[in-house]
């Protein structure tokens, strides 16, 4: 099974995964390198890809002379797992006090959010009527 978050990935490795997802989870080393900010050398990218594969995050298929890489998990699954792991950090911990967040805290119930949503819809209808 993928060990996307259980093993710590470096920033570059996470960036590679991110680029891979953005490329439709199917890309060659050269394509991935082109999407990286401040791209490293070709061989370093290949080294990192090999390392990611060793960590179980990637697999490759041979396509002629090229290796085509894909992640072993979907982006949604990866994000969800990372998010859940970090949510405790964000909202159970003190982090939120030390930053300004667009929407902080998460103790809302669905009913409360639904009530807010219907309030928004009501206002939207009223404004449409007026205009």
């Amino acid at each position, binding site marked *: 099974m993928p060990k996307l978050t259980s093993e710590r990935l470096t920033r570059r490795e996470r960036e590679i995964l991110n680029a891979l997802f953005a490329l439709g989870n199917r890309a060659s080393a050269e394509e991935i390198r082109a999407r990286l900010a401040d791209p490293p050398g070709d061989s370093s990218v290949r080294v990192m890809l090999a390392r990611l594969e060793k960590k179980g995050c990637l697999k490759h298929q041979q396509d002629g002379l090229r290796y085509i890489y894909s992640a072993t998990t979907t982006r949604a699954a990866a994000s969800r797992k990372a998010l859940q792991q970090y949510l405790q*950090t964000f909202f159970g911990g003190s982090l939120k006090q030390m930053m300004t967040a667009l929407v902080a805290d998460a103790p809302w119930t669905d009913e409360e959010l639904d009530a807010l949503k219907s309030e928004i819809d009501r206002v939207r209808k009223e404004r449409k009527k007026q205009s």
Partner: protein
Amino acid sequence: MMPLLRAALLAAGGSLAGSIVTKATVTAALGLAGAWLARRNRAAVRHALLAAVFAVLLALPAAGVFAPPVRVAIAGAQGPAASFAADGAGVAILTPAGAGAGEAPASRPAGLSWSSLLLAAWIAGMALCLVPAAAGLWQVRGLRRSGLPWREGQRIADGLAADAGIAGGVEVLLHEAAPGPITSGFLHPAILLPIDAQGWDTEDLHRALVHELEHVRRRDWAVQCAARAVCALYWFHPLVWIAWRQLTLEAERSCDDAVLDRSEATAYADQLVGLARRLAAGAKPPLLAMANRADLGTRVHAVLDAGQRRGPAGRLTVALACAGAAVLLAMSPVQVVAAPQAAGAEIAVPTDVRLRTDSMLVVETVTVAGANGQKVEGLTAGDFVVTEDGVPQKISLFEFQKPESAEGGYYILGYYARMGRADGAFRSIRITCAKEPAAKLEYRSGYYARALSFPEPAEPRQTVTATPLMKPPVLLYKKEPAYTEKARKAKYQGRALLSIEIDSSGRVTNARMVRSLGLGLDENAIEAVRQWRFRPAMKDGQPVAVTVRVEVNFRLM
């Protein structure tokens, strides 16, 4: 009502900590009331007001420590001028209330006193509040370091930052762990976006970036961190925490207002609720206080409210908030103390020895040698009998000193003699040791009961009549006299009355005892009083030298 208020003021204003807490309460309450009054005004105005509150709260302890306290005496009838009440003889008596009320650390008896316990509790609470804040800062640092650069988002943010007039770059990072857009950093601000922000609708992304960039422009992050530090300082104070929550809410609302400048309200409200839904799905329900959930509702309703005033706070508002803060700070050295006649200000003495102030302690050191010349050790107070002119005295002070040097090994005995008998006559003391009748006791065999140098109340040498044209000197700086070791051991308390001359510059030029206490306290009192500073007395608008009496209270806590 009035006596109650007065008692409360005295209790609060008596000590430095008490007066700081009182002022903090007043400041926070004023700020919250002001924010409530301005509830229809711009969020940025309320934010400026609350930020000023936190600035004052931060400066209060510093001002309390460094600025010389200006004491305002209060009394039921006499009013503030009572700190200089002319007595019948026309001599002004200035009584710095609470003088020596255990404030000098040297005067504290050994063991834990209430104030040191309170200090320890305060420091512990502060540490408990600062540790998570520091951990949070560390986590922010980690997140920023592990955030992924995002070229597309960076390009959009740079354009928006230029529009908003933000000088200097704002880094845009993606992070898997970011549940929503987040801003941090002061000198090098960064906006962290969730990794799926890459797939967001352009409008959603713009709104989120505008909101976060407004935080950067307003320097909210620094304000919030500073406010958090203030909360740690006043961790015990609920009003400060309430003000802090209000401050963060107003910062968010100010940034919401910036978004509404360029976006449709309902779409933005939808985005907020959508983000909240996302968070609520990921979090286990009651992670935080229930109260926090009100904030989202407040914001959404404010976003939808067409009648709400929006926009940044004007220069005038900020100037007014700063001026208000300055006035509050200027008033901060004021300490409320009791006027001289306010006997209610006396602090209960927790020691069992309550002495008349006119008692005098007579201390004798006794060496007891046995028949063969060796020092006799281990005697107790009950083994000695002290008579003064044949009258047995109650031993109040007893101490056995272990022989450390060759001459060591002696006993210190003390008893209280009524000062009323202080007529200057010679008193003969006899000390006998009932347990060791054969022992040889060495001690001073008598003393002169100290006569007061002049009768009490003494006739003033220089009369100051408090006429309407004569303005009394005002105590500006007071140094507490130190207790002496002897007096502390003897649990000796009382009031020394001094006559001091205050020259036209407010300095104490001469101080002499009118009613002395002895045991070295007189010397300490004179030494302390000489360092006092006054606003000089004024006559016909000119500063004049006056002689006044001051009472210095020696009291053990």
